[in-house]
């Protein structure tokens, strides 16, 4: 394999042979030749095509469903509704991004008594051809009693608002529930110090309100799910998912099967960003296959993806922050109301944990509300909850700096959390790279440069995301030629085959190219949590490291057996030389890795290393972003002129893919900042359910994105990994807001800061 980008390794990774280099990813050739098989590419003999009928209403009671005409259509083999599923209990299951009640998981997959958002699935068909399936759903007759939709988080929280769920009561952190049913599913609060004292100490206090729109992950591959149920009760599922085990553990109880009856094969996945964790089509495909005895494939079109999969929450937020004249922040009060969509489970908890996380503020209160509305059930989206909450807090911090006449970067340095600082939610930091990111940004050519020209401005913002660990498994066999196939349970969404293989290679002292990573089905590897939470290179890498250490131990034992010595006298060096004691003639005894690999078969058989790790720890991630914009005062359009992203990766295993995560996060963050929104009319009809109208950044909308990887190794990982995927989506929106304010003197209060919003604000400003 070639290593074309031979950029020098960083000081941190110089001590490594493989880590910090840029090998060609192992799955690369398949992905540039069209050979890689994504979920929709699967075709099995006798496979049927499925299609889903969806609700035209945002809120309605289902009075009746008549499927007889659809069933009578030539080529239709099955039609199902919610009533065809076994009754689901209210038991709580792990959904990979949290937990959910099983009956609500089922109701979101296919509506029972009520439809709760436009696009909510109502029925599904399987037919011999997808054109016939499309015709068939048109023949299903559904009678609805239309109800008043609840579309805004603040409206939904008002007493007397129409209720989505009569059984939902507001849960508090102490476990108590409200007496009356409510659309507010839960309330949480984190506090630290005393707010009154903190605000009394402040010389300047600023309070701002913010509204942000729902925004979609926007992966280019629509959802898909295929299933084949056999007469012996075993079920195969093929799907593009971030977590094959989560799919297994969601589908099995929905069909009342044992997890051992269900095998999920993760196909290649065309983007996810958190949105491909929940199940949507897989249970429908499974039941359709059960009804027909044939494999069934379901795919969504783009409109279905936007209408009926999980975007991130729209929000209403209010932040009050006070500081002394020298820039010391004395108090912050944060109110976060997050739309969960149709069922409880917004990311408000994570948003609350992150809201003030970069700063050591003595007096804080953070309130979070999880609120159901007649919009699709939200799903995780890259650092779920944090882009919203940190947009609000970073924006107010920038305004405080402006009010006090302080450099916003200096003000952040003055208040930055360091090792030992405690967040309001109780977490105390270990070694973190918060200050190092700010310092690197301060020294960057971008920050040091002058920005000139009318209607141009510069902004800065900090981002924090906690990252997660949890369970990952791996195993690997040493082949006779010294190559090592590495078997993984983590879906490779952006280069993790490479980043995990590199950690195995580093530990064994062999090349990345001598490791062949494979992602396999749920029967072929141990439990592995989702590819999400920036956990895969961290926890999966740890599993690869432990797998390699297991191989090293066995290689030592095998060498000892060959040399007829004590295994304690054999050592496996980081240079991949296995050294033993001198032989009877006083000669050194040693094997290279490949030499010993070549003797394994004749000395007792192959060696297989394995590991299952479950880490409750993680490595918190910080990022500092700088952006220059130009605002067109006539149209309100904002152009990004220059962008620099600084981020602490801990250790960058494959720097090119770390840069890629940073650049991709920036692009999504800029989209959220400037264009992307769910635009509903008053009936709850999403008016922009296409990629023309849901406007994501194109190549023409962005400049090159300068990256600066800071490496403050995470002491809680064998190679110092922190996880890099999520934090870069957080700073763009507040940085762009600050740049717009710097350019035209207007402080925006909503996301997206679209041309319409900017014209509204500037016209109002002129008046």
């Amino acid at each position, binding site marked *: 394999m070639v290593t074309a980008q031979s950029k020098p390794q960083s000081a941190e990774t110089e001590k490594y042979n493989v880590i910090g280099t840029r090998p060609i990813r192992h799955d690369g050739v398949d992905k540039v030749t069209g050979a890689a098989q994504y979920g929709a590419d699967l075709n099995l003999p006798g496979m049927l095509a499925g299609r889903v009928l969806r609700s035209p209403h945002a809120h309605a009671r289902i009075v009746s469903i008549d499927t007889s005409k659809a069933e009578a259509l030539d080529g239709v083999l099955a039609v199902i509704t919610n009533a065809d599923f076994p009754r689901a209990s209210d038991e709580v299951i792990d959904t990979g991004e949290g937990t959910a009640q099983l009956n609500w998981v089922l109701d979101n997959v296919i509506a029972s008594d009520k439809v709760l958002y436009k696009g909510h699935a109502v029925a599904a068909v399987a037919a011999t051809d997808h054109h016939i399936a499309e015709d068939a759903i048109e023949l299903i007759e559904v009678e609805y009693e239309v109800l008043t939709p609840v579309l805004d988080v603040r409206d939904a929280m008002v007493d007397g608002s129409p209720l989505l769920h009569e059984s939902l009561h507001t849960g508090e952190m102490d476990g108590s529930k409200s007496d009356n049913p409510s659309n507010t599913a839960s309330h949480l609060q984190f506090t630290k110090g005393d707010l009154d004292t903190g605000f009394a100490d402040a010389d300047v206090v600023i309070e701002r309100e913010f509204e942000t729109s729902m925004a979609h992950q926007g992966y280019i591959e629509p959802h898909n799910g295929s299933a084949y149920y056999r007469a012996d009760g075993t079920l195969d599922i093929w799907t593009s998912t971030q977590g094959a085990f989560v799919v297994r553990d969601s589908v099995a109880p929905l069909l009342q099967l044992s997890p051992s009856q269900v095998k999920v094969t993760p196909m290649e996945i065309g983007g996810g*960003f958190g949105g491909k964790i929940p199940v949507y089509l897989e249970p429908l495909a499974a039941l359709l296959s059960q009804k027909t005895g044939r494999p069934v494939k379901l795919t969504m079109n*783009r409109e279905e993806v936007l209408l009926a999969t999980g975007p991130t929450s729209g929000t209403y937020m209010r932040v009050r922050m006070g500081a002394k004249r020298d820039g010391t922040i004395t108090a912050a009060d944060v109110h976060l109301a997050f739309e969960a969509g149709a069922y409880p489970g917004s990311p408000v908890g994570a948003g609350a944990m992150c809201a003030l996380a970069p700063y050591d503020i003595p007096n804080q209160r953070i309130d979070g509300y999880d609120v159901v509305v007649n919009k699709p059930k939200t799903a995780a989206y890259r650092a779920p909850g944090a882009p919203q909450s940190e947009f609000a807090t970073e924006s107010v911090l920038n305004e405080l700096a402006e009010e006090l006449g302080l450099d916003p970067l200096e003000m952040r340095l003055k208040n930055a959390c360091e090792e030992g600082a405690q967040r309001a939610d109780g977490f105390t930091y270990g070694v973190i790279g918060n200050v190092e990111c700010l310092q690197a940004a301060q020294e960057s050519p971008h920050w040091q440069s002058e920005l000139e020209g009318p209607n141009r401005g510069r902004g800065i913002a900090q981002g924090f995301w906690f990252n997660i660990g949890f369970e990952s498994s791996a195993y690997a066999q040493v082949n006779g030629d010294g190559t090592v196939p590495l078997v993984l349970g983590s879906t490779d969404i952006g280069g993790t085959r490479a980043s995990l293989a590199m950690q195995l290679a580093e530990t064994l002292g062999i090349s990345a190219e001598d490791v062949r990573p494979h992602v396999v089905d749920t029967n072929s590897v141990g439990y592995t949590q989702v590819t999400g939470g920036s956990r895969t290179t961290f926890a999966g890498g740890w599993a690869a490291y432990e797998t390699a250490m297991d191989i090293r131990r066995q290689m030592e034992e095998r060498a000892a057996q060959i040399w007829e010595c004590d295994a304690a006298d054999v050592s496996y060096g980081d240079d991949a030389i296995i050294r033993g004691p001198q032989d009877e003639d006083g000669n050194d005894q040693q094997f290279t890795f490949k030499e010993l690999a070549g003797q394994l078969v004749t000395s007792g058989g192959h060696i297989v290393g394995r590991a299952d790790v479950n880490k409750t720890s993680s490595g918190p991630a910080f990022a500092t972003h700088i952006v220059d914009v130009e605002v067109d005062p006539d149209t309100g359009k904002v152009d990004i002129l220059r962008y620099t992203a600084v981020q602490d990766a801990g250790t960058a295993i494959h720097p090119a893919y770390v840069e890629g995560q940073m650049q991709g996060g920036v692009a999504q963050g800029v989209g959220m900042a400037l264009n992307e929104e769910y635009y509903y009319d008053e009936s709850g009809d999403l008016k922009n359910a296409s990629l023309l109208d849901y406007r994501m950044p194109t190549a023409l909308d962005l400049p090159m994105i300068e990256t600066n990887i800071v490496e403050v190794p995470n002491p809680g990982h064998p190679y110092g990994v922190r996880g890099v995927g999520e934090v870069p989506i957080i700073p763009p929106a507040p940085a762009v807001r600050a740049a717009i304010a710097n350019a035209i003197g207007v402080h925006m209060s909503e996301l997206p800061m679209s041309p319409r919003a900017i014209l509204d604000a500037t016209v109002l400003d002129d008046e």
Partner: protein
Amino acid sequence: MASEHIVVNCTINGEQQVFLANERDSLLEALRDRIGLTGAKEGCNNGNCGACCVNMDGRIVNSCLVMAAECEGSEIRTVEGLASGDQLSPLQNAFLEQAALQCGICTPGFLVAAEALLEQNPDPSEHEIRYWLAGNLCRCTGYDKIIKAVQQAAGQSVV
């Protein structure tokens, strides 16, 4: 509602192909479902994302917007036709070396579109590359490394 079927003769990646298309099939559906070439991807099915880009008679088309029946007599090239045997094209190599893909779902469309750009304009500016590729959406990379891969394939120095 029974559909008519149509015999279509065309050349795909240099090979003569005869297939039976449903009259409602797009070229994308015919490629994927009738011929078994799944390299072109469906991202939107209405011409907004470019994941289904193929080269049809020298022009880049969104194959989801072309009816299969329109392809009679056409010469079509898909991502599967870019490499020669086990030799990747310079553009394919550049995508790998520049780490210009993450999930890879948009990559076939970008490769087909970028190859056509370099055929017409062997030394494009950054702006020309961005303009040409604005019809192909990528959600993972922020485009930076894709632009650099095209620059590398054009023989330009890449920072």
